[in-house]
């Protein structure tokens, strides 16, 4: 207990420096700004803005990126409530009751409920991280190559299990991602692999290029499929503060949502999406107003909004302590760490305690910024929502291209982004989820290295993965997850969970 506060104090020293407060604020502002723009999810937003953080010191970069993340999430909820258009998948359920509330003239209350719920959830989740992270990192410090390899297998499998759509295709995407991640110079032997003799590929393909292409460019083309130019009607926002009655009704849902979200966020592949769906379903069942769900029940906004914010934050736990991304956003964060020259894993907490705790404290600060930023600035966000997509997508393309160009001042990266855009569109058309690909892409080189080391350790005997208890445990868990998925009942439920609205 005492230690937790000591650690939070270290974090406070980092997060509350004037410069980092500014970057946190900038991150939250930019994140919300891009988040409310239609057709840009958090992954594309972060990938696009990531080059802007590269010149910053590592902790400022990460603080700003984290700010962009929950800013983008909050922006997504705002569009969900006001125009019935979820900015990203985790605010899909918010449209159900949130937009109904807006239609009933209670948009302001819905928005402030989302903001307050997110803030409470963020505060609680910050403490959850502060309590959970050190013991987890302690365990992880005992890991050796075999454990890491098995952990990555488990992480990748879990990301598939919790992803949408066909299991087999998601598995294919993971393997394809792992392979693409190996493009470039092999660290052990110095061999150039899969570079087609191009010097520009000898350092591999920057993951930002892959992410912007597959998530950003492909998304633009998808949005252009539908005949555009439709005018969206934005609900009027007035009466921001919830009444006493509302406050009474949202306390319990916010707390339950926070608990659900904190728990599910830690799971690999979980994060905000699963959290918001589960919290909504749970609330519908336990709430006294369960019957009103879908008709503008305030609980239906409070619970999932708290849950997705809590989940978004606790998904940092496996990323920061184990170096394992639980979702594409965390994969981008790991990529950012690597670019900054920090090797993700349990050592980060020991060697970079300022960064580690600074990021955690900044989450709370960022949530506070969100609360004070979003409600007063709602008028500005509303105006941004109304920007027609026809005007918006060329602007997004320009910023994406220049962002990618600025990574290494290499024109080749722009061409590669275009290639990955085409690939990403093909993936989308074929119902192949891009998220597992990105996770595989980040983990590919690391997995190979741990596999090599483990096999050297065991003199070429693959049984090493089964002989070491922790490694065995993780492989068994991965196997179980796959088997459970093949059980027809679970399969049907999983399909329904994602198809439902």
């Amino acid at each position: 207990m005492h230690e937790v506060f000591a650690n939070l104090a270290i974090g406070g020293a980092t997060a509350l420096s004037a410069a980092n407060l500014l970057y946190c604020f900038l991150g939250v502002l930019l994140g919300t700004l891009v988040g409310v723009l239609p057709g840009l999810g958090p992954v594309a937003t972060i990938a696009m803005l990531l080059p802007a953080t590269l010149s910053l010191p590592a902790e400022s970069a990460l603080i700003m990126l984290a700010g962009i993340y929950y800013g983008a999430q909050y922006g997504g909820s705002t569009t969900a409530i006001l125009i019935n258009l979820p900015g990203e998948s985790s605010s899909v359920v918010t449209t159900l009751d949130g937009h109904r509330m807006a239609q009933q003239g209670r948009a302001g209350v819905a928005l402030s409920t989302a903001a307050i719920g997110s803030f409470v959830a963020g505060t609680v989740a910050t403490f959850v991280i502060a309590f959970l992270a050190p013991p987890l990192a302690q365990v992880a410090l005992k890991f050796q190559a075999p454990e890491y390899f098995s952990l990555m297998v488990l992480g990748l499998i879990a990301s598939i299990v919790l992803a949408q759509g066909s299991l087999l295709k998601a598995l294919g995407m993971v393997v394809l991602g792992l392979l693409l991640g190996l493009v470039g110079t092999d660290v052990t032997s110095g061999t150039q692999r899969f570079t087609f003799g191009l010097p520009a590929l000898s350092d591999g393909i920057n993951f930002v290029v892959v992410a912007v292409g597959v998530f950003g460019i492909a998304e633009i083309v998808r949005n252009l499929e539908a005949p555009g130019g439709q005018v969206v009607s934005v609900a009027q926002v007035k009466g921001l503060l919830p009444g006493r009655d509302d406050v009474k009704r949202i306390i319990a849902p916010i707390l339950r949502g926070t608990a659900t979200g904190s728990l599910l966020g830690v799971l690999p592949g979980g994060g905000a999406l699963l959290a918001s769906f589960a919290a909504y379903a749970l609330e519908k069942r336990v709430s006294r107003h369960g019957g009103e769900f879908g008709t503008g029940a305030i609980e239906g906004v409070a619970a999932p909004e708290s849950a997705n914010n809590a989940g978004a934050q606790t998904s940092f736990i496996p990323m920061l302590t184990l170096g394992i991304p639980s979702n594409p956003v965390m994969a981008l964060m790991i990529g950012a760490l690597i670019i900054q020259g920090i090797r993700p894993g349990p050592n980060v907490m020991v060697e970079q305690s300022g960064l580690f705790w600074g990021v955690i404290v900044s989450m709370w600060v960022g949530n506070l910024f969100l609360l004070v930023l979003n409600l007063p600035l709602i008028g500005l966000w509303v105006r941004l929502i109304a920007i027609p997509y026809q005007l918006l997508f060329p602007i997004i393309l320009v910023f994406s291209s220049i962002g990618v160009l600025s990574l290494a001042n290499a024109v080749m990266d722009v061409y590669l982004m275009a290639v990955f855009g085409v690939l990403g569109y093909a993936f989308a058309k074929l119902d192949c989820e891009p998220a597992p690909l990105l996770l595989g892409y980040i983990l590919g080189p690391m997995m190979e290295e741990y596999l090599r080391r483990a096999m050297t350790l065991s003199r070429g005997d693959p049984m090493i993965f089964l002989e070491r208890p922790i490694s065995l445990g993780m492989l068994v868990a991965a196997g179980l997850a796959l088997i459970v998925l093949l059980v027809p009942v679970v399969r049907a439920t999983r399909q329904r969970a994602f198809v439902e609205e």
Partner: protein
Amino acid sequence: MRNTGSKDVLAGLMFLAFGVLFWLLAQGYPMGSARRMGPAYFPNLLALVLILIGGVTTVRGLLSRSTPLGPFAGKALLLVTVAVALFGFAVEGAGLAVATILLVVVSSAAGSSLKLPAAMALALALAAFCVVVFRLALGLPFPIVGPWLGG
């Protein structure tokens, strides 16, 4: 999710193609042994797994009922891709300003409602913004007007 026939077939073929490509390329590198893995060992393994997944996906797709792919935004895909490639092609030679204008004008044709004069205005505004912010303020090392245009 039973009716994803043709999508599954195409996805399977895509995995197969990537698997075969990576497998073929991997054969050119030293394989090593399980104890001392060469650069080809892990990719070789992964490529074989991908070929297997691709094969199973294809067969399963062939056995299930097929459904159409849905709308395919060929024109938008082409225009967006060409616009981005043009930007990359022009940014060194013709400069940041021209590259940005090209990117905006070509890509905006992928949308339906933006007319050329409006696109041109947007392009000029964005080019000015990018030159000021990225070239002048952030020092992106690409010329405003490139050598092709005497800059």
